[in-house]
């Protein structure tokens, strides 16, 4: 058994090393930093994005040149734009993480409430489920401009799509588990005299929590996807904005983007997503310790 595990991790590591190695070789042979940046270049880009540059005075090429002199790491159109704006990788990641967390904190209870409402009574389900299906079918990112018309240029049109995406995904697992629970435990609890809020807090929510927390993993992934998409389209900060090189994509299609920045950003996002997923699994294991 132990040998099998050792062999597995060896293969895992070998695969990682092999592909990174293969990429390094191909990229350095190709000599096309505008398409395939070499591994050292990607590492330098990381360094350039993590160290905060001096916010450059926006006058004249002389000053910009001066600034590059001080700044460590790589330089390209996109890196320069970001450094000039004082963007760092950790700041962008922090902003996006906050948006994702906001979406989860507001969207999950909302989605669970709707799920309980639909799962609780057959009658409400019959009336409201068709409407829920319609609402769920609209991709949250398509709503951005409409929200913007109502609420203006603000944080709202970045946060509402995330909340919307999280809420609509959280409904399903809650709905199904509440329905299952209704059939099994609710009758017993009712016959013992439990009713109202006691039923919800002591029977319904605990019994539904494993499924809901299982759905949480998917909700986290959706929240990240929506946050990055919203930031690419309409935001002045965050990881999505960093990927498209500072500024909304719609207004910057002509700018030459630097693949090294994008790769650095994608790696960061993957690491952040993985970390949050690990946190979710830990939370799930702790909260549902009583499940056999």
């Amino acid at each position, binding site marked *: 058994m132990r040998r099998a595990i050792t062999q597995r991790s060896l293969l895992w590591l070998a695969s990682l090393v092999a592909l990174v190695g293969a990429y390094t070789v191909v990229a350095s042979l190709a000599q096309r930093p505008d398409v395939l940046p070499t591994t050292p270049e990607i590492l330098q880009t990381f360094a350039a994005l993590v160290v905060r540059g001096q916010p450059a005075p926006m006058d004249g090429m002389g000053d910009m040149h001066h600034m590059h002199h001080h700044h460590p790491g790589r330089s390209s159109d996109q890196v320069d734009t970001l450094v000039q704006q004082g963007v760092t990788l950790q700041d962008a990641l922090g902003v996006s993480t906050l948006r994702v967390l906001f979406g989860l904190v507001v969207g999950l209870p909302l989605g669970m409430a709707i799920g309980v409402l639909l799962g609780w009574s057959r009658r409400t389900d019959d009336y409201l489920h068709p409407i829920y299906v319609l609402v769920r079918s609209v991709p949250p990112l398509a709503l951005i401009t409409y929200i913007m018309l109502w609420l203006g240029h603000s944080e709202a049109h970045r946060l509402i799509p995330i909340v919307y995406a999280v809420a609509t995904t959280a409904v399903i697992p809650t709905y199904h588990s509440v329905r299952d629970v209704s059939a099994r435990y609710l009758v017993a609890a009712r016959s013992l005299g439990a009713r109202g809020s006691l039923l919800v807090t002591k029977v319904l929510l605990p019994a539904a929590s494993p499924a809901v927390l299982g759905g949480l993993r998917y909700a986290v992934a959706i929240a990240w996807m929506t946050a990055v*998409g919203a930031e690419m389209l309409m935001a002045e900060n965050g990881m999505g904005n960093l990927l498209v090189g500072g500024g909304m994509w719609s207004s910057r299609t002509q700018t030459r983007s630097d693949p090294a920045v994008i790769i650095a950003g994608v790696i960061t996002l993957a690491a952040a997503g993985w970390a949050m997923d690990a946190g979710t699994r830990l939370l799930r294991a702790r909260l549902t310790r009583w499940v056999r």
Partner: protein
Amino acid sequence: MVAVRVRRAVVALVALVLLYGIAAQALHGRLPDRIWMGSHYVDNIQLLPTWGSLAEEGVFLAESDILASSVLVSTRRVLAGLLLGSLVGIAIGLATGRARRFDAIADPWVTFFRFTPALALLPLYVVWFGYGELSKILLIASSVAVITLLGAHHGVRAVPRVYLDAAASLGASPRLAFRRVVLPYALPHIFASIRVATGLAWVTIVVAELIDAKMPSLGYLLALSGAYPRVPTMLIALATVGALVLAFDLIVLFVHARATRWMRRTS
């Protein structure tokens, strides 16, 4: 029982239509029609267009063939991405589910793509494959592949050991066991993942089409109606995307039901 449910659904949807109509009529002329767009004001905006103006706009979009051609182009892209992505995803997922060694080799890469929001790859694909069709289809394919891969993988892993032992003791070759035991068992998992992936494919295409803003496509219709802005067009485009997502979901459900007819259903 079914009749009651259908009646209630119809009542709810009619109520929704009526409520929207009443709200739009009541607020007609009362909502601000002059909106600050970040750099300039735009006049004559109907934030909540009445059914009348929606119908007028709908007729225009239908008669000018804008809507139909947009639907066609976007649907073709989604279908191509779905097909490519799910073929690759399911093939790899079945392999990682069956072969432990291959699983160990593929795992770091599956983990990496799994936690990367697919939309983040869009700028990279644009650098690699240009603004054209290929980036969009590959982007959809990547997001679909990851999800179907996980679905197929977990489906194969969920096959009870007893079934495989039984098949082997009856003399089934690994190939036969795979075809007659593993694959049917994994099918519901695979279909569930395709349903999720279909929804995601539409989210992806809407954003991907905003990049290379070319008519006709639904993403561009949305972007353009947002840039003017022209709310009736925007709402019709939103509703069209929603209807397509719903239609695709129903098709996948239908195919799933057909493909697993032999299973006993509890509900």
